[in-house]
């Protein structure tokens, strides 16, 4: 099929798929970011068991394959009487996975803050949480704009997992198999989705480096 035929026949489906991917990406990224911050605070807390849980979280979710996590959520969890919709399962998987990477990036960002600053904050009487809130997190966040941009793109790629469960409307990856089961979509059907993914990734990358240039801390 030519690109023109494909777009007249499935144009609205592609648009819906693009919006689904964007929506999944936005929600997952927001959730991943919040979870990532919480996990990071847990990992730097002085209380050992809390630290351990934070570390364990990161080690589990950065090492488990996305497909395995989604399959467990969708097919295995109902056996434990946890029954969630397909949409919820996808969102849980695409939020929990990037959250572990988010925490890793924040930790790396924190390492760029010198020990002197933390000692200084402590010596003017800041408590642990004040130090975190006023000294550590703002700098860690500012120096992790570029990693976070990469994380946003990675989150978008992770949302392709949504194609593994029946969703309506389907995402950008799902639409390719949807079209190919109905007609001979060929390479073009694939290329349209690929182009939309790439375009989104490039736009995110551009915005990311723009923000990075504004907020980067020059040392």
């Amino acid at each position, binding site marked *: 099929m030519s690109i023109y035929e494909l777009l007249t026949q499935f144009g609205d489906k592609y648009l819906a798929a693009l919006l689904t991917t964007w929506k999944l990406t936005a929600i997952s990224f927001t959730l991943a970011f919040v979870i990532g911050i919480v996990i990071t605070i847990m*990992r*730097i807390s*002085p*209380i*050992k*068991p*809390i*630290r351990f849980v934070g570390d364990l979280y*990161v*080690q*589990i979710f*950065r*090492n*488990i*394959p*996305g*497909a*395995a*996590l989604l*399959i*467990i959520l969708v*097919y*295995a969890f109902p*056996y*434990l*009487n946890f029954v969630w919709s397909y949409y919820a399962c996808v969102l849980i998987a695409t939020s929990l996975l990037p959250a572990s990477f988010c925490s*890793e990036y924040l*930790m*790396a960002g*924190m*390492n760029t*803050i010198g*020990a002197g600053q933390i*000692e200084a904050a*402590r010596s003017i009487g800041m408590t642990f949480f004040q*130090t*975190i809130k006023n000294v*550590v997190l703002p700098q860690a966040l500012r120096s992790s704009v570029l990693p976070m941009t990469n994380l946003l*793109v990675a989150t978008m*790629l*992770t*949302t*392709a*997992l949504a*194609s*593994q469960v029946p969703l309506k409307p389907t995402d*950008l*990856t799902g639409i*390719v198999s949807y079209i*190919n089961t109905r007609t*001979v*979509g*060929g*390479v073009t*059907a*694939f290329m349209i989705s*690929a182009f939309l*993914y*790439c375009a989104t*990734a490039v736009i995110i990358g551009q915005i990311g480096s723009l923000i990075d240039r504004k907020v980067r801390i020059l040392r």
Partner: protein
Amino acid sequence: MNGVNTSIRDILYEEPGKKARRRIAIGTVISLLLLVVLVLMMIRRFYDSGQLDSKYWIFFTKSTTWKFLGKGLLGTVEVAFASGALAFLMGLFMMLGRISSFAVARIISRILIEFSRGVPTLLFIYFFFLAAPQFGLKLPAFWKISIPVALSAAGMVAEVLRSGVNAVPKGQTEAALSLGMRKNSVFFKIIFPQALRYVVPSMISELVIVLKDTTFAYVVNYADLMQNSRVLISNYDALLSVYLVAAVIYILINYILNQISVAITKHRNVAS
């Protein structure tokens, strides 16, 4: 759990005093209790839904079960190595194009890298699974999973290699050129071997990503760990236990790979 990460944790607070030590102790006890309650609640869930029943776990004591899982794991490892090697080769060419002095090669490599990094692995897999057969490209299942996984890793490999090349001090190129070496032999004999050394830890992390992507092998019906787990599930009618064990195997392998990467980085930091 990473060598660099522990440092920030240790400087965040000074040696706790008497009061703080007590507070930390109380916090430790409370959080430990919460943790125990949480674990008990999880076990309770398993118990109440009958998932602790021995019929779901007993077959893990049989050697045939592990042999079968091991066979699947071997399939996973084979695909991971094939994809890793392919991704390295493709990434190498993309990187060479990216730093080449020909503008056309630079632009093409740039597009290829963006494409590889911007398209999800699953879409590449669907391409080789659904689109490629339409124009007569019939590949065995092994390559139907290896090639797409490699394609989606290649862009990242190229960027990692490039960062390695950039990390080699400029003075070395200048020194080698001034000795009369040719540009190509400067790159391949002096710059590249060092760059390769720099990027070994990142390459191992990349291998973890490749290994995780190979789980999509079930899409093309290739017998990897995930696919063999499915067979076990239908044999023993035990879904939850098998998938959990498979997930733990994946996590452990990737964890070990990541620890190797961390260990190499640490060793180097000490050495230099």
